[in-house]
């Protein structure tokens, strides 16, 4: 067990750098990743006992390299083994270690050829330096299941022959979008949880913010990266107020704002304020700007809804989609009245993409409640109760319905 949290932070920061350097020198992502995981475990044990070595990065490199040789020794092909042994002797080709390698690793783990669950699991293990057990716990699955998922993901990296390179300039924007989406999904998994009892899993939200911060350091000029980091901070800031003492979800309008994390809000607001207008606007910057308007309102009543609606109008042009329409309907209802919002929701029935989720009925119930139609509102909440797979949301919706019963 890692007891010293300072040493743990250091290990987690060094993990992608060491792995990146190994993969750059030897290829073979899967073997290198195993070797680094074992080096991390060895470090966790030894450093706790004997203290952190003077040059922890070299220590990890040495142990991981040795472990890699062991892995190759157990390989049956003698010739390959000798080639690898020779490769190990090669001096580091003078490239600056660390930073670019970490970025290469992120692009590799978030390669569009991998499935989304693979991208998430690989990113957390290879870039985040989490153990399989920790990743499994975060996703609420047995360790053996997660071990299989990671092993399959590594197999596809191998089978697809994915290169350990920064994507060419022409693909960079698309590839970066996938990386951002993976970090966003990791955060969301921790923040809302698609299933299960716990309304929030702090591990995943913290990890997503840590990785977004890392990416922001590696690519400070990318406005959407800054936008994502700001969005995660501004959303996470409300975490403590999202559930009450009994574990029930509390909607934004009823949250106790003194529980919001002021430091995270300040950081998020500062990030988004200095980024807006410096580069083409994108969906993460816009969502961060919307979150900032909410977070800066002293009370729910004082929320600047016209500004939020204006931001949603831009978001609708930049990244149209049913979820944007859904959220825009709420903003529209707050500016022009619930009936205007309900009319906009009506366009989503024909769209079909949200009709099998609880979200459309949950929002419709809310707007009908605002419009004073409690009978119809209750029916919407009850339909939503049947469709959600989240126990906290099911309970929240059932109580909303019961209040109107």
């Amino acid at each position, binding site marked *: 067990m890692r007891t010293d949290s300072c040493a743990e932070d250091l290990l987690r920061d060094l993990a992608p750098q060491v792995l990146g350097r190994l993969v750059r020198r030897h290829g073979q992502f899967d073997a290198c990743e195993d070797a680094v995981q074992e080096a991390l475990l060895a470090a966790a044990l030894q450093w706790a006992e004997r203290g952190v070595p003077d040059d922890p990065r070299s220590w990890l490199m040495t142990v991981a390299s040795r472990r890699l040789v062991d892995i190759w020794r157990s390989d049956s092909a003698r010739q390959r083994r000798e080639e690898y042994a020779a490769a190990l002797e090669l001096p580091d080709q003078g490239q600056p270690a660390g930073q670019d390698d970490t970025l290469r690793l992120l692009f590799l783990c978030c390669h569009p050829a991998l499935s989304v669950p693979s991208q998430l699991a690989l990113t957390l293990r290879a870039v985040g330096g989490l153990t399989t057990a920790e990743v499994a716990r975060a996703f609420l699955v047995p360790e053996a299941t997660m071990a299989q998922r990671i092993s399959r993901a590594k197999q596809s990296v191998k089978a697809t022959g994915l290169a350990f390179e920064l994507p060419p300039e022409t693909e960079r924007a698309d590839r970066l979008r996938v990386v951002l989406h993976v970090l966003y999904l990791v955060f969301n998994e921790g923040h809302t949880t698609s299933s299960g009892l716990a309304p929030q899993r702090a591990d995943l939200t913290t990890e997503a913010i840590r990785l977004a911060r890392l990416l922001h350091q590696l690519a400070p000029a990318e406005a959407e990266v800054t936008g994502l980091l700001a969005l995660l901070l501004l959303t996470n800031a409300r975490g403590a107020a999202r559930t009450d003492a009994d574990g029930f979800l509390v909607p934004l309008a009823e949250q106790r704002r003194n529980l919001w994390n002021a430091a995270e809000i300040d950081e998020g607001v500062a990030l988004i304020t200095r980024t807006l207008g410096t580069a083409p606007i994108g969906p993460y910057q816009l969502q961060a700007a919307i979150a900032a308007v909410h977070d800066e309102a002293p009370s729910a009543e004082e929320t600047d809804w016209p500004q939020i609606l204006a931001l949603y109008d831009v978001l609708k042009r930049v990244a149209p989609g049913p979820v944007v329409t859904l959220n825009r309907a709420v903003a529209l209802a707050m500016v022009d009245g619930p009936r205007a919002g309900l009319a906009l929701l009506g366009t989503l029935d024909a769209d079909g993409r949200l009709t099998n989720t609880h979200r459309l009925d949950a929002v419709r119930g809310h707007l009908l409640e605002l419009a004073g139609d409690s009978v119809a509102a209750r029916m919407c909440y*009850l339909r939503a*109760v*049947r*469709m*959600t*797979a989240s*126990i906290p949301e*099911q*309970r929240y919706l*059932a*109580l909303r*319905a*019961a*209040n109107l*019963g």
Partner: protein
Amino acid sequence: MKYMIMMFGSAATMMETQPREWILEMIEFMHQLDEDLRNAGELVSSDGLADGTQAKTVTFQDGITVVTDGPFAESKESVIGFWIVDVESQARAVEIASRVVAFTHGPIEVRQVMDAPPDL
């Protein structure tokens, strides 16, 4: 001995027909039960299932697999949640089930989970 304690019915229907106070008590009851089982070292796992109306049923008809919407059993008879407990005796598993039934009034089935050699 491991037992699966299966609860039948529809959580959504329960929540539709019961008042707010009952829903709150039910949530508290389920929390307490899981905590008690965990403290006693008897809980292996427990989960609730999304509403039966969201289920898909796969059957074999005229030589092909057919997927239909909805649960296999009638909606009001489908499984809505389960506990897997590791207990001393069947009597203890039945005792746990009885505690739930006394509260929910819904039927529960207690089934032993079969032992198998580790390589199966």
